[in-house]
């Protein structure tokens, strides 16, 4: 009960931060945290199959694709 409330609070504040923040890279990384905590939520709902899939696909590969796109889109602007 406590754990689910804590995870829900983390998830909701992370989603708000993702929408509100101005930095695009920060938004992508915080979205990964939201996705990972949603996979813990799936585990608390007694759905371990969905939790594994969400952790692998929703939190891993989607974040990777977003970062690839970020590098393609922003690479002319900031040359490090």
């Amino acid at each position, binding site marked *: 009960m406590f754990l689910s409330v804590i995870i*829900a609070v983390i998830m909701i504040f992370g989603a708000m931060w*993702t*929408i509100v923040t101005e930095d695009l890279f920060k938004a992508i990384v915080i979205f990964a945290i939201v996705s990972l905590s949603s996979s813990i939520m799936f585990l608390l*709902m007694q759905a371990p199959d969905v939790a594994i*899939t969400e952790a692998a696909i929703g939190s891993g590969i989607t974040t990777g694709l977003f970062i690839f*796109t970020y590098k393609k889109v922003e690479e002319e602007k900031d040359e490090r």
Partner: protein
Amino acid sequence: MTQVFILSSLSLMFIGLYGVLTRKNLLKIIIALNIIETGINLLLVSFGYIDHGITPILTSQESILNLNKMVDPVPQAIVLTSIVIGLGTTAFALALAIRYKITHNSISINASEEEEGRGI
């Protein structure tokens, strides 16, 4: 317990919808769409949850005797496939965003309207 799950998933959905309605950056909109998708997946699985339910995996003879305490496996099976489809549609949307960047040289959704001469 079910109320916590339903409330958190619904608020995730509406935060994502707020982001889709008000943001101007294309990648931000795609992230907001992904947040909506996560919320809907959580909502579907939480409909199948019952209090003090156990995982729908047989481990011994005892779990076969407790079949009516297990949570509903059908929403879990549907969400399992929906996550994978979500990855495919996200990849397609990101490819469209890269195309948009190349044609309009900007990633704000105002760029296409400014080119046609009408601002917001």
